[in-house]
């Protein structure tokens, strides 16, 4: 069995340090396995979030060699065995301890979104063709890697004015839901800060569920905002109708 050197960021925001460990690497091993090995052999208090270990829950997000990844999905053999592997917590959110960050901001943003609003009474039928695009958005496992990589949050820290790709996906899943009757367009333009996104597609690249966040969620939502607020015909109509 070969060995690999892995450097893990420890500590809190106030006091952090990197520690280096040698970890045996077996076939098919993933970075999360290495972290567990370090926990059980060297650093029993090393803090890390994980649950399913099968890329279904989105808990074990971290930055592996600077890239936002799910650790359970990052195979050790994808990295150069002779180079050090560096594991840090995701950058966009404040660190609690070691690899665990405070992602509560996401849960707060989520609460501000108008919930699913169906018509009253029984529904009729629903057809697969009307659901396909929404089902893509509903694949999201809330790993928040898209939030972590988005430069509006990562570099410009616009947390107070920008909901981030995860919540544009959530809003798209509601806006395009065959049964939903609410509108979240005003929210997108104002509190959600959709205009800040300049479609660099970083979010789509890191999505472990391969959701086409930019193409299928963000751009159609931007079009809806434009239709609502900047369509000249609509504007004239609004002037005359007083709406």
């Amino acid at each position, binding site marked *: 069995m070969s060995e690999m050197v892995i450097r893990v960021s420890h500590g809190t925001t106030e006091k952090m340090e990197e520690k280096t460990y040698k970890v045996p690497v077996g076939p*098919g091993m993933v970075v999360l396995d290495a972290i567990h090995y370090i926990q059980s052999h060297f650093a029993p*208090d090393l803090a890390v979030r994980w649950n399913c270990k099968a890329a279904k829950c989105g808990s074990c997000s971290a930055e592996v060699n600077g890239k936002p990844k799910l650790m359970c999905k990052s*195979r050790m053999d994808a990295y150069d065995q002779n180079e050090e592997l560096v594991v840090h917590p995701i950058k966009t959110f404040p660190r609690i301890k070691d690899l665990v960050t405070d992602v509560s901001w996401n849960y707060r943003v989520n609460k501000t979104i108008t919930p699913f609003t169906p018509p009253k009474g029984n529904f009729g039928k*629903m057809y697969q063709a009307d659901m396909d695009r929404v089902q893509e958005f*509903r694949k999201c496992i809330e790993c928040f890697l898209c939030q972590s990589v988005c430069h509006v949050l990562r570099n410009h820290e616009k947390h107070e004015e920008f909901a981030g790709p995860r919540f544009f996906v959530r809003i798209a899943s509601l806006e395009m839901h065959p049964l939903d009757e609410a509108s979240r367009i005003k929210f997108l333009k104002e509190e959600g800060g959709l205009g800040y996104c300049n479609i660099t597609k970083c979010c789509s690249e890191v999505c472990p569920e391969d959701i086409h966040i930019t193409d299928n969620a963000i751009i159609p939502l931007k079009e809806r905002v434009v239709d609502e607020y900047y369509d000249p015909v609509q504007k004239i109509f609004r002037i005359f109708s007083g709406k």
Partner: protein
Amino acid sequence: MESYETHEHDVLVIGAGGAGLRAAIEAASQGVSVGVVCKSLLGKAHTVMAEGGVAAAMANVDKSDNWQTHFKDTMAGGKMLNNWRMAQIHAQQAPDRIHELEQWGALFDRTPTGDILQRAFGGHTCKRLCHVGDRTGLELIRTLQDRVVQIGMPVYMECTATHLFKDGGRIAGVLAYWRETGKFVLYKAKAIILATGGTGKAFVITSNSWEYTGDGFGMAYQAGAQLMDMEFVQFHPTGMVWPPGVRGILVTEAVRGEGGQLKNSKGERFMERYDPKRMELSTRDQVARAIYTEVKEGRGSPHGGVFLSVTHLNAEAVKKKLPSMYHQLKDFADVDITKEPMEVGPTTHYIMGGIRVEAETTASTVPGLYAAGETAAGMHGANRLGGNSLSDLLVFGRLSGHHAAQFAKQNSGAVKINEDEVRRAAQEVLAPFDRTSGPTPYELHEKLQEFMQAKVGIMRIESDIKEALVEIQDLKKKLTTVRVSGSRMFNPGWHLAYDLKNLLTSAEAIARAALMRQESRGAHTRLDHPKTDPEWGKVNHVISKDGDAMKVAQSPLPQMPDELKKLFEETK
């Protein structure tokens, strides 16, 4: 002791998987104050990993389906050891629970005529599983989570419950600690619902996450509630076996539901020898035993499993119907399932046993304490059918929420918790920090998982189980000397040190019940008692705390009324 925060609710739900969230929604609808405590972040509970579907006799695909057929399939799958009333309530109410999810925004796959599509699954005689590709659990938990957020109730995330407290005979509250800070928090509640899942982490090969440490079983047992049917641990037949890092991760039964075939190293579809009628869609206990036998007799795959293949199916259809499986095998095992077979073998998946509850109300034997989902016993008997867990969560989650809220309303007086008990409980949780020598929690956990797998696993024999019980006693002693290092801030070693207490209670209950049941039935296979014995089919094993010892007693099975018995005669 140090100061701690206190919260008070009419109903407190512990666990935020499908059962816990459904319970919370229902309790809140009764107008009582509800709080949810969960070990992980909201939306990460085990329900998220459920893949294949949720069983409900909606008759969208097989028009002949009805609750009676679902009920019969469930009882037959459970080898008639199920609580008949739970199985009946479940079969009758599951379709309404699915429709309700749609009203809350869930989007299930559709038939060409616009109804919810249903797929075949092991032991279900009709196509009955409503699904969303192979990520049904995610759809379920997200829908329930959105609903909880919409209603608006406190969700205390990353908070681990440790001790239940009583006021006189009735439930009064629970002590917990914040994983982030390690500080204590006391919840006072008039009713508590345990929806803490199972105890898969007692075994080494498991599809379960770190959270599955039998917390509900341990806490309820200590509080005087009874456990039941703990010998019945489900080993799902198809877990990944290679590479080692992913050993035990689930390959959904939907693979077989969509037409996947099991083959041994000789290329034989070996299920012909074990269950020629149902083949791959036999029940989980039978398929798991068949795979075990094939491997043991030298017809296994290179890494000690068997082959599961969908290569004869249309590649695009496979990617559409089983997208997560396609990616899981490709990313983790370098296997393209549209071109090559997967290697699979049994993995610890679920426990049919749990807290003994009343069928109609989910009430445990402690007044004010309720249990739902995997934490409760009775619904699934000796073996659970695939898809019956997600429906169980919805049906009994709702009932527990309803009845816990009713209990809280009827017993509205303030509850009192003894300060001394709280102090002693907190001391117990903190004790490992005081020790400078002794084993680490990781060492003890590894030991437990190894011997439970080897000695109380898929094939059991008296001498092995007795050895396991000796080892459990030994580990219980060692647990009083376990040491942890570091601070109380987000310290997984410390968390595991306390989780081990519940794991050991669960493991002991499993072993004791397994030792007593001298027959093979459903998921419980005794090599020294290979036959199913009708006499043993008349009793459940009830486990309770008797001083410091664990007591196992036999309790006669509730008798099914004649009109339901007739259903079984008609098919004979």
